[in-house]
């Protein structure tokens, strides 16, 4: 069994420009009004003057335990042994939506035919494009970078084999991941406030590239 591929996301570097979701639609030749395989949400907390907004980019996380796969009655969802990428065989999908309920990230989408499609980590192109494809290769090995990763202007999204992604994460993100955050389905940098970033800089710690325009 090959190494699990996974996503990394750093909300501190995301500027909420939606380039990732647009790039995804372009790569997979999806209509502009089609449901998004990668979505950007703007999470707001507090009220003025304490108001804060954090952009969050999400897609299928290709979970190591893939809850969608275990509930799919016709075995249309496959968690690949070779790279851990979760693909969809649309020739088997019955469109029951059970996977949508099971997915903790709301990743499955349904087109006009009622069949499920979702991110395939650019293993292939189009709905169901990843199914049956050979093992995923890193750009260094000649594989393509996922569109959301290559078009992200702030380097907020990364994807790759778990060991490689972990190596690029901050100590805090890696520690949080090891502690079981998000059931170890995705590596996410903790959201820093400016004071915490300043404190981290003063103490000489890595801040994982937090973006701030103050101080």
């Amino acid at each position: 069994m090959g190494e699990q591929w996974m996503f990394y996301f750093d909300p501190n570097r995301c500027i909420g420009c939606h380039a990732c979701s647009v790039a995804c639609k372009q790569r997979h030749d999806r209509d502009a009004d089609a449901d998004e395989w990668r979505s950007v949400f703007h999470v707001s907390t507090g009220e003025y003057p304490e108001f804060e907004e954090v952009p969050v980019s999400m897609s299928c996380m290709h979970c190591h335990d893939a809850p969608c796969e275990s509930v799919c009655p016709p075995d249309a969802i496959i968690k690949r042994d070779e790279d851990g990428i979760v693909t969809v065989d649309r020739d088997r999908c019955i469109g029951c939506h059970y996977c949508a309920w099971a997915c903790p990230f709301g990743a499955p989408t349904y087109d006009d035919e009622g069949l499920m499609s979702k991110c395939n980590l650019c293993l292939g192109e189009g709905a169901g494009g990843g199914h049956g494809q050979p093992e995923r290769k890193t750009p260094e090995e000649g594989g393509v970078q996922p569109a959301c990763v290559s078009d992200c202007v702030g380097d907020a999204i990364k994807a790759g084999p778990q060991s490689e992604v972990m190596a690029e994460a901050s100590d805090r993100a890696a520690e949080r991941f090891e502690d079981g955050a998000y059931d170890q389905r995705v590596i996410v940098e903790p959201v820093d406030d400016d004071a915490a970033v300043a404190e981290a800089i003063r103490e000489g710690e890595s801040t994982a590239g937090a973006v701030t325009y103050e101080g």
Partner: protein
Amino acid sequence: MDPLTAPLEFAIALESGLVGQSAVDHYWLSADYWDLSIPLYLFLAVVAGGGVLTGATAPVLARLLGSADGRLEGELARWGFLVGVVSAAGAGLAVLSHLAVILRAVLFPIYLTNFESWITIGTWILVGLSVIATVCLVFRLFGAKAAAAEGASLFPRAIVGKLGLLELADRLVDRFRPPAVVMGGLYAAGSLLAIATIYTGFELSIVETVPLWNMPVAVPLAFLFSGLAAGIGLTVGLTLVFERRLEPIIGAYAAMVGLLSGLGLAAVWYGWSVLTASDAPAAAASQVALTNGTLAAGSWLVVFGLAVASVVGLLVGALALTGRSGDGTDRLAGPALIGSFGLLLLGSLALRIILLLAAEQNPVVVVG
């Protein structure tokens, strides 16, 4: 403001704040939804189980209780299998109507290969139940014995007669009627499959993203007890509409409906206590949804339907079983049973609908 009685948006914002103190933040999105055909399917599948259970156990109960004549037992059995066949067919049509590619679902032995999925397991249970209910119904409706019987539940004979096939059907059934031991086996298998309709609860309870559903004890038991009670209640109600005799066998089933309704209510109450004690923000959102607005009426319908059926079923059941029912009580008890069991049907269906709709307002995790 109490978050449990506050408007949904306020409670969500508040709960998000609470979660913000933990290591992982959540954000709130509307969840995917299943249309109303899904709760209808989840309901009818267990009602079918209740009908088959009544049909399969009627001969045993009649023997145990010494039924005055075979008419009531025959009526209960036929109505039971009819409820089983019609409800199972309705469940199948409801779930098929929801799917994108119906043909693949119809070809389930080829396509539904994931036996870890409760939809696959459930399909086999529902199909098995439908086949047994149909076979048992045919052997109850046709043949020389059925030709000599009387009762409203024999109406399908009239339909077959209009088609000019009644004589042939009676002859074929008598020719191929299996020995009693085989019929006993069919009844036993039907009863087991009726109980196996608990799978409808497991279909929801394994969904970890929805705390309202993710209760592996409360939800399956609530679905099983309330659904079987509704199926048995519907069978008894149909029988009583035409027979109007409160014999001990009717009392036994009325008491069974009362007991199952009470157990269903207990399971619902247990699930509610788990939900209200949960720290999960999604649990709080579901709780608010169930106690505010339109869904609150549905919640009360569930409680009211199960409670009334429980009290009336146990009371009338006890009267009929102990032989204390007379002309006066019969006149009241029959309509009371029919009315309360009708309310039970509505409450049992409402349970599935509100569980679905309250989860529709359930958030999904957004990383951040």
